[in-house]
């Protein structure tokens, strides 16, 4: 007995007005919309794989060519520039010794002609810029200049010992990379390093406060730390002009990363010898990270990375191979369209009939 009995009963008592409840016809409500019903017929299958192959292989070839055209020099220097100290402890104490002279010279050979601009990168290993504690340790409002004394989220690098807000605050800014490189060609021809335009325009113009009425100057940077590492900013240059910082603040996705240091806007010829004077200031020794200096040209696609080309070629060739396989299968074992013996409910019987032979 349903509880609704009482409520339905009044339908019976009062004769409802006769209006047909017949649903209205429409192709939509009757689920008869015109539809495309593609079938994976052998012809289509072969064609699809062929098309993928035909498209992918040329793309692969072109991208691979682009990547191969890029000239890249990678120079590791974390061991060369530590005055032959071998143990980690020695290296760490060397790097933390503020009085030690940390300059070292490195020679690079240009393997191929490198057309300007030649990009200079530094590469760090085992540095977790994507660590959660690290990534969060910044204050965008402060950087933008909206609230210059706002330091929330920046702990433990929010304020100085006496409570003054640090600007830019947070671990990222505090641990700014501070190795420097000076390049010269041959014996003494200096190569100018252009450090302008290495960051994103939107960063310079918006996120680091360019459009604010007053420039956003750094101040109160903590100086006396036992772990010397982080670079210091020029307090007289507004943040949006300190592009090293801007690049650094855009944290890397992976623990091994490169960051743009500058550009040499001069062609480098094959066989030329480049000497680099490195100020080896940055402490990667504590956590055993590597440092590399990278010079690279770019193609229309970017730097030296054959991944895209190889992947495209692999997928393309695989598709061609599959097209061939399906062609052979179809040739050897043609599949009549609409053969009910392939229907799953017929298959069992079909197999047993075959097995009887």
């Amino acid at each position, binding site marked *: *007995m349903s509880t609704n009995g009482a409520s339905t009963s009044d339908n019976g008592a009062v004769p409802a007005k006769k209006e047909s*409840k017949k649903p209205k016809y429409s192709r939509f409500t009757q689920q*008869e*919309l015109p539809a495309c019903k593609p079938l994976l017929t052998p012809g289509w299958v072969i064609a699809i794989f062929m098309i993928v192959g035909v498209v992918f292989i040329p793309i692969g070839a072109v991208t691979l060519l682009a990547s191969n055209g890029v000239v890249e020099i990678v120079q590791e220097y974390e061991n060369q520039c530590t005055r032959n100290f071998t143990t980690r402890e020695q290296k760490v104490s060397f790097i933390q010794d503020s009085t030690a002279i940390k300059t070292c010279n490195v020679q690079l050979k240009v393997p191929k002609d490198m057309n300007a601009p030649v990009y200079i990168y530094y590469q760090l290993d085992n540095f977790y810029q994507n660590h*959660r504690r690290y990534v969060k340790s910044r204050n965008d409002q402060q950087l933008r200049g909206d609230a210059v004394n706002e330091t929330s989220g920046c702990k433990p690098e929010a304020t100085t010992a006496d409570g003054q807000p640090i600007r830019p605050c947070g671990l990222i800014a505090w641990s700014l990379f501070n190795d420097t490189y000076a390049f010269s060609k041959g014996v003494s021809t200096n190569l100018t390093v252009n450090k302008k335009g290495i960051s994103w325009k939107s960063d310079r113009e*918006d996120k680091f406060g360019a459009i604010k009425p007053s420039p956003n100057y750094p101040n109160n940077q903590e100086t006396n730390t036992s772990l010397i590492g982080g670079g210091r900013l020029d307090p007289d240059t507004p943040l949006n002009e300190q592009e090293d910082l801007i690049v650094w603040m855009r*944290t890397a996705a992976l623990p091994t990363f490169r*960051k743009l240091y500058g550009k040499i806007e001069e062609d480098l010829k094959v066989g030329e010898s480049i000497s680099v004077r490195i100020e080896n200031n940055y402490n990667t020794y504590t956590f055993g990270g590597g440092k590399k200096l990278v010079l690279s040209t770019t193609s229309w696609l970017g730097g030296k990375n054959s991944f895209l080309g190889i992947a495209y070629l692999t*997928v393309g060739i695989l598709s061609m191979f599959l097209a061939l396989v399906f062609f052979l299968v179809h040739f050897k074992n043609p599949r009549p369209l609409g053969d*009910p013996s392939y229907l799953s409910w017929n298959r069992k019987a079909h197999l047993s009939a075959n097995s009887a032979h």
Partner: protein
Amino acid sequence: MRSLKERAIKSLICGKAVDDDGSNSGNDRTIHCNQRSANAEYRFSNNRTSTTKYKWYNVLPGSLFVQYRRAAYWYFTAMAVLSLTPFSPYSAVSVVLPLIFVLALGVGREAWEDFRRSKGDKIVNSRLVQVYIDGGKKKPLQWRDLQVGDVVTVNDGDYFPADLLLLSSSGPDGICYVETKNLDGETNLKVRQALESTWTFKDEASLKEFRADVKCEGPNASLYTFIGRMEFDDGRQFPLGPSQLLLRDSTLQNTGQIWGVIIYTGHDTKVMQNSTAPPSKRSRIDRTLDKIIWAMFATLFVMSFITGLVLGYRTGHDGPHMWYLKPYSSNSYYNPNRAVIAGIISAVTGLVLYGYLIPIALYVSLEIVRVLQALFMMQDLSMYDATTDKTMRVKSTGLNEELGQVDTVLSDKTGTLTCNQMDFFRCTIAGVSYGKGTTEVEKAAGRLGVALRGSVDLRGEIEEWDDKDSFACNAYQEKGFNFYDARLLAGNWTGEPNKEIVQLFFRTLALCHTAIPEGKVEDIGSLQYRAESPDEAALVVAAKKFGFCFCKRSPSAVQVREDTGTGQYVDVTYELLNVLEFSSVRKRMSVILRFPDGRLMLLSKGADSVMLARVDPSRKEFVKSTVEHLNHFGEVGLRTLVLAYRELGEEEYQNWEVKYAYARGILGREREVQTEELVEQIEQKLIVIGGTGVEDKLQEGVPESIDRLARAGITIWVLTGDKVETAINIGYACSLLRKGMQKIIISLEGAQAQAVEERAEKESLTREKVNKEFRNIVAQQLAEGSKELSRTKSAADGSETRRVSMSRSNRSRDLVNQHSGDYSRSVSQRLSVRSASDRKESNEEQELHEYRTSGPSHRTENGEGSLLPEDFSTVSVGRENRDHPIWGRLVDEIEEMEFSLVIDGHSLALVLEEEKLQEQFIEVCKKCASVLCCRVSPRQKAQVTRLVRKGMGQNRLCLAIGDGANDVGMIQAANVGIGITGVEGAQAAMAADYAIGQFRFLERLLMVHGHWCYRRISLMILYFFYKVSIMGWIALYCNIFAFFSGQPLYNDWYASFYNTVFTSLPICVVGTIDQDVSADDCIKYSELYRTGHRKELFDRKLVIAWLLNSVYASLVIFCFPLGLLYLAPFRSGGEVASLQEFGAALFTCLILVPNIQLTTAISYFTWIHHVAIWGSIVVWYLFLLIYGALPSTYATLAYKQLVEVLGPSPSYWLLQLLVVIAALLPDFVYRCFKVQFDGYSEMNSFTGVIPFGRFLQGFWDLPLKNGRPQVRTGDLKLLLKISTKESHLGVSCTLTKEGGKSDEYSIRGYNSNLVKYVLAIVCKYSNT
């Protein structure tokens, strides 16, 4: 429900209530009638009823509680709480918002439903009724203000506002009629009669004086019992019973007005006490979903645990050296001094981070999609019933996909398969059979070529039906009357030889019943009858049509307008002395009348079994022929009754009447025993005058629907109250039993059972012992049945040889146990050969049989050679030598559908009692295509349903369909309950999960909508897990690269919109409107439905496959951007990618791959699909654009991401193309191979390409390759033409032979190979 009266009588007991049906619970109430103030102390509940689940103040907590029954919701809430803490890697809003949305949706729905219920309640509660308060003036009151003890008056056609004690009626003798459609679904009227002492209380004046106390039992749910007593102030006491009780929700009919005292109000009323919350059903897929969720939980915890472990270790080990983190200044997280705590926190963070594995959006989407699916079902024009103007209605949307996997249908018969529209169809009077026309059963018999016994006998007597007749017949047809025979109609009966008997027959029809006429007496044509059952009404209508119009009834007289045979009518009044009422035990009813000429007549009608036992042995002139005719009527599916009379001697009657009146006056159970005895005395020495055959018409399209359902592999059980023979015939009529099926009959009507009964009587065995004997018989019959089944099965499974039962007209080897004795013989006789030509075939059949038994050697002796494919002859003969290998080959899975089981109610009751028998029974039933349970009570229906669910196991899914209140139990017990909104009220439809107007809609509901929904929901769940687990794995990879610190490498908002905005719409569209094949093809290729039985679209294997696919895709999605963006600059400007660029590139791939993966999983694209899929992808790019264009305060690091950074870089776009193709490749290759080799096991629209029939024809002519058996067309030289056609019986083939004679061979087979072989053999043997 017939037993109402018996039970009423049983419980009419004076004084203190005796325990009856457990109804007395010791909370008896005393009611001071007509005195409001006196009743106040008892604090009876008021008459306000409420069907709402919640009150305004607890809607929120109540409905939330309902929601939180899902385990996943607790998890989501926990995650939301976590997200408010600093542990969370995501911003709190992005986690909390979706949860609030989901919960709000659920709460909103509950609140809305409740609101609608409360609106309904309000209407009911504010209805008006006339009340005499404290005997005062009559005034209208709202229902809600009524109180116990109030005297109310109710007018004709109105509802009773509460449970009333009938005081008086405007009709004679305090009688009134009530309709209880809303209570028990019965449309017939029931009589209620007030106590004689209260008849006079029917106006203000007399009611003022009315003072009495009613003592009765407390509120209870038993509709058919009521015990109480009325005590007047002057000390008089009268017992009260159900006959004085008028129940709320029933209506007053055919009575001007009644007065009554309110006994139970509001929630104390019987109808409210009866209301039970319908059981909440969950679909199997839902339950599987839970299991998958648990597995995902486990995975999630393992992942989080490892995360915590690794982070803890590394924080302790490497942390001190990571000076750039200032680790020691951290208060808890990542502090190397507290590495353990750091690990634990990180594990908790991991739970949130990888929480995408548990898809909250799936629950929301499923709910929305199911509702949309339901809307589509309800809109389906093919399920709209024009006759009742009812669309199909979905009551619980959670079971849509179950409709696609049903493998057992339990069906009610009357009102479900049949219309419950009884038509008087044939009759036999004085040994002559009257009536023309063919019943459904006869039509089916003709269709199937089954000869019905008795047709031959009657052929001489019944003229062939011709067009002229059907024209004439139309003039006489009326609801309840579908009879035509010129000999009886229009007064022609006066010309019949046994004129007097014919007249008596008509009088019996007009007098022996309890019906009530409705309409004006003057206009006979418009006169209609309200009777206890449609059968009875049909008989009275028939009498009217024959010229004996029953037009008035009073308690003591019946008036009939009789045709004198001359075309003139006279009103004849018969004095009604006694009515010996019908009951299901008695199976007969009688009236005792005094005819105008003074004769005392007992007119009686009843089932042949009980009537024939009471026939006067000396007056048996018409018995033999009547029985013969009635048997024939039964066989053709008619309900039969025997009519008989007895003339009583005055003295004999008076003596009896005294005793009877005395017995009726006895109070208590003794009364029943005594009256029964007396009735038995008088109903003796009957003289048979004839019999009637009433047809219960099949509903439209029933046989076709059942046939297609059977083809779809659905086992159909019919639970009917009919006797075995009628059930079998109806079975044939509605295609439940098919030619060539082997019947296993479990019956206690056979010789052996009779022997036991006789012995029991002789030796006076206890009931227990007899039952034990009976149980043994049933067990034995079951054992034999299963032996026969297993013999067939083992032959089929054990080797390549199989037993064959070929469906030729006469090859119905009924498997009937010897115990059912005579009955079995009659069945096989009935199915014997019909005509000469058939007999010829039977010889061939014999030959075939010999051929079969003697094996291949016989064939070679014949020297017939190689008509058949050569390879057959080399097949070794299996262990059963008599089975020829060819035959074995002919039969494939179709063979398993070749059995049916018929069980009678008595046996069934025994089966239901004992566990061992249940198992045995179910074992047999599992292998049968259809099961007929006869003589089943409503309670047994529910029991059988539960038995089927239990016995068949988790893998089977049973659906119950019915239309009456007696099917409610069955409907609620089944996995899926379907109600037919038929004649018998709305009870079944209300209790059901789906309500349809006609049985035949079931076919469309299951095979089209069920199939679609099953596919849609399956795909939806699989795909959802695919897409969420991709996200989950990627969160893990990111964390690995981020020191397990819990920093996601992508933006929070990307992640929180992933499931809601970027990927959910396409799958919801697919879940709502995807089709593998069109509706027409779903029906045409019924076998498609079996994909649901085989769980082809959703099982553990598929879940694992999709998850593996997601692992692969996630690797591609993560590693390819990594490969591209690692170290080297990705733009010509030398810029390298930071965390933001990596995240955005990764996420672009993450949006593309699942969306495009969906396009490969379906093969049905409407413009809606295109909009949803490509739209989602476009939305992602738009999102990047818009989000990036927001001021950097909001956009943070994603500021100008697409415009400045990613967009101009060709590698970003090349990456997307690469990732999409690479991620989808393996799955796509697999799909291609599957289509090439595995055909259609993943259903697709291939089936629609070439019509099956056309294909088959092509098949015949073409030899096949690749190891498939071939037929050399040259061998079939005798064959001129073979045409195949599809019919509802399968593929049938017509062979046209040289002589031009055409033979139709109906072969139930859908496998073209099978058809071909059968034809080959048929050809060979029909030409030798």
